[in-house]
């Protein structure tokens, strides 16, 4: 069989699935309109009325989340290293030391530039 045939079949299935879902939903679904349906999906913040300051989130939340990721990733790498600690020997120790110090460089940057001050 020509190897391109399955590729076309996959494409056709993908297209067919999308088309089927849309058409089936339009034909079979009940159509009851209410206010909630016009609002942001699920857990979105209400877009109106606008919050003070142009409706923007304070950037502090974002900073906190990013800082969490920095340390989270560090831990993610520490686990497999801890499991293979004895097999990797000195090499692993030195590498992990370098890795942790580069994470601390990022931390030092955030700290010195005021990223840890809440107000």
């Amino acid at each position: 069989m020509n190897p391109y045939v399955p590729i076309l079949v996959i494409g056709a299935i993908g297209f067919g699935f999308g088309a089927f879902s849309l058409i089936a939903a339009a034909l079979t679904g009940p159509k009851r309109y209410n206010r909630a349906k016009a609002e942001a999906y699920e857990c979105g913040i209400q877009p109106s009325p606008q919050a003070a300051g142009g409706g923007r989130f304070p950037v502090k939340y974002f900073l906190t989340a990013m800082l969490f990721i920095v340390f989270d990733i560090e831990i993610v790498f520490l686990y497999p290293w801890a499991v293979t600690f004895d097999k990797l020997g000195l090499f692993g120790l030195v590498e992990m030391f370098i890795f942790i110090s580069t994470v601390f460089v990022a931390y030092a940057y955030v700290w010195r530039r005021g990223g840890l001050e809440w107000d």
Partner: protein
Amino acid sequence: MLTSPKLDYALLAPILIILATAILGVLVEAFIKQALRARLQLTISLAGIVIAFEQLYRVRNQGSSMAAITSVSIDGAGIFLQGTILVLAFVGILLIADQDHFAPQASALPGSIEEAAALESGRAQTEVFPLTLFAVSGMMLFPVATDFITLFVALEVLSLPLYLMAGLSRRRRLLSQEAALKYFLLGAYSSAFFLFGAALLYGYSGSLSLNGLTDAIHGGGGNDVFLLLGIAFVSVGLLFKVGAVPFHSWTPDVYQGAPTPITGFMAAATKAAAFGATMRIFYVGLDAAQWSWKPIISVIAVVTMLFGAIAAISQRDIKRILAFSSIAHAGFLLTAVVSLNQSGLAALLFYSVAYGLATLGAFGVVTLIRDSAGEVSDINRWLGLGKKSPLIAATMSLFLLSFAGIPLTSGFVGKFAIFSAAYESGNIYLVVVGVLASAIAVFFYLRIILMLFFADASNDSVSVVIPPLLTRVAIFLSAIVTILLGLAPSILFDVAQNFAYFIR
């Protein structure tokens, strides 16, 4: 049994030096006073690049396909491209050193009180230097990486800082932020394609390395559907990065919105890195399956060359014109990739230097032509600039002639090498289309030159500012190399030919 890996530190050192310099740059941002930072960052960055280049020069005749287990293969083409990227980064940083192009505080709302205050206090976003170096380290890793995980990591390391830097422009902030967001969203989308393609190729060959892929293709027996889909998806990721049609649509917007020195650096160095990786993947990993991908990549090369040349004609903004011109050049370089021979690789190496330096020089000149509101990129307001400042206009003309491939410039030699490689490999129609596209492109390059020299000066406030010393050095270096490689191409071309090999 797990053992600690053996790394060839001498061969990896150039990349590691750049990374260490970037981390040092972050520490400078954290602990040094604002007033000293810009100067210190500049010195550190340039020193780091010089040291890395020196180390690269020292190991130029060595090579190993096992530099970092099976993930990195340092060989002739890899070393040449790393050197090219370092040279382009050096010149690029000379342009970036002019802090006037960057927002004083990128996080401030455009037009807000905070922004005005930051501007008044003389602050500067000197993070741009470590960001550039991080991008450079990714660019140096990209063309030498030989497994798909390392390729993907390198792709992300080179892309992420560029997304950020595209949004740092001091003037026309909204356009710049729009460019950064577009670049980020489309770039992330194309990275996903690349990763999915790598996963499919792993499904096909059971190996992440390019050599394993070649063995699997030779051995046969795998499911060809995975192979073909994998090639297609990986190609989409790569073609996006090099800006080939139909994955080019981000190029004009990002080139226009990003700060001009960043545009120059991005256009020059990203092309060298991405084409190096493309060449390695197709040459080393997918050579055995060439009849599956060669026809479609050839078609893309044809469309890219013609589209770039034709679309540039209707543009009125110099940065957009250069963006479409870079799309056309991506088409020429794809022609070299499709040639799949040693002279194609040599041509690609030479072209990346010639095109890269001319691009940096051209964007360097664009930074100089300003009115009271900043850079003037509308080409209609450049009328008659050749009479006001003949030297700058002549330099710009030199770079444009090099893009057009007029003899006695580096661009001619590069195009000639690429077309003869394509001829050698039997792709005559690519040569014909390439020459045709060059002829179309000559039209809009010459039109700019005519506007500069043979039109009456438009009566407005556009003027050429006195270039800062480092910008002057950058433009001067680019111009010298462009002429030198046009007059005596063998200086670099022989080197490129000696280095045009991959170690499998």
